[in-house]
């Protein structure tokens, strides 16, 4: 009896171990919105202006043991930009910036992931924004993973990258201090 239990435990342990070694697929938690695509850009060099995209979705696959096999895909509705100021949002949607009527979606698709240290990685991928596709590197940090209190399993990351507005054909010149925008992506995924 004791022997049988021990064998079962060992087997179970081996199975769990095998399960963890395989990359799991996660859907970005859009329902509970534990996910944010934020950006910040300098205002005249005097302060940071923060904004967010309210509507986006995506998925990633991740295995803590093999971070280099991770993948991430995000699709974003550019119309959903929100900087807490209607007139500014309208301007950002216009041809001066994001051209949302012509380019209503932005996407990011990873092409390779390179571990850079304990819980950090560089995610290289193609970012399509304002109709321009360019490779970018997101410096990502693993935040945590584990069971949630409602029967699911979650993992979360945060990453950022700096974009030159001109690189993505954004015409408006906001001045020397505001040539770049920092994109900050903070997502939690629920294991599928």
């Amino acid at each position: 009896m004791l022997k049988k239990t021990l064998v079962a435990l060992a087997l179970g342990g081996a199975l769990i171990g095998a399960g963890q070694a395989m990359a799991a697929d996660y859907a970005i938690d859009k329902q509970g919105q534990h996910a944010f695509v934020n950006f910040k850009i300098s205002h005249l060099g005097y302060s940071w202006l923060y904004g967010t995209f309210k509507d986006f979705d995506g998925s990633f696959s991740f295995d803590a043991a093999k971070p280099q096999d991770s993948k991430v895909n995000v699709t974003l509705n550019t119309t959903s930009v929100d900087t807490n100021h209607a007139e500014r949002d309208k301007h950002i949607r216009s041809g001066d910036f994001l051209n949302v009527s012509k380019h209503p979606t932005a996407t990011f698709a990873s092409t390779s992931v390179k571990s850079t240290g304990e819980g950090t990685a560089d995610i290289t991928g193609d970012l399509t924004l304002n109709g321009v596709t360019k490779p970018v590197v997101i410096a990502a940090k693993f935040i945590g993973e584990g069971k949630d209190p409602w029967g699911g399993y979650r993992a979360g990351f945060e990453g950022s990258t700096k974009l030159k507005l001109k690189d993505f054909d954004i015409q408006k010149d906001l001045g020397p201090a505001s040539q770049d925008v920092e994109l900050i992506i903070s997502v939690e995924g629920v294991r599928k």
Partner: protein
Amino acid sequence: MQWRNSSSHYGLVSIFMHWLVAVVVFGLFGLGYWMVGLDYYSSWRQTAPDLHKSIGLVLFAVMLARVLWRWFSPPPASLPNHGRMTRMASKLGHSFLYLGLFVLMISGYLISTADGRGIPVFGLFEVPASLTSIPDQEDVAGLVHEYLAWALVIFAGIHALAALKHHFIDRDRTLTRMFGR
């Protein structure tokens, strides 16, 4: 000249408000057209839209007063040489000018107040936001404001041409009546 309109002549109040609105509408169109193209570092970048909104809200009050006055003191009767078609066309045209102007002003108000912010009027007082829940409000209201502004100034131009036609071709009192004659 009388303050009130009579059955044959316009009074001072109607005449004054007509020309005031005419000047302000074309002025606001010019100001609006110019301000949306201003560079981010232009010194007018904040003042021009503030002025545009302040003047627009005062115009709204003037237009309300104008409609009330029209009801209190109706405009003079049509000139006897105007046929049925002319009367109908002028009624339709004037209705569009009034209605269009109100929709234009309301759409402008809805852009700036879409996020719940009020609009300061010449820095003296603030007109609060009201409707903020139209989907993509600032964009929809923005399109209405832009296209309607063009439609309205073009139509106001036609309105002016029609007045000139009455003056120089029909040689009637349509235009001179608006100067109190």
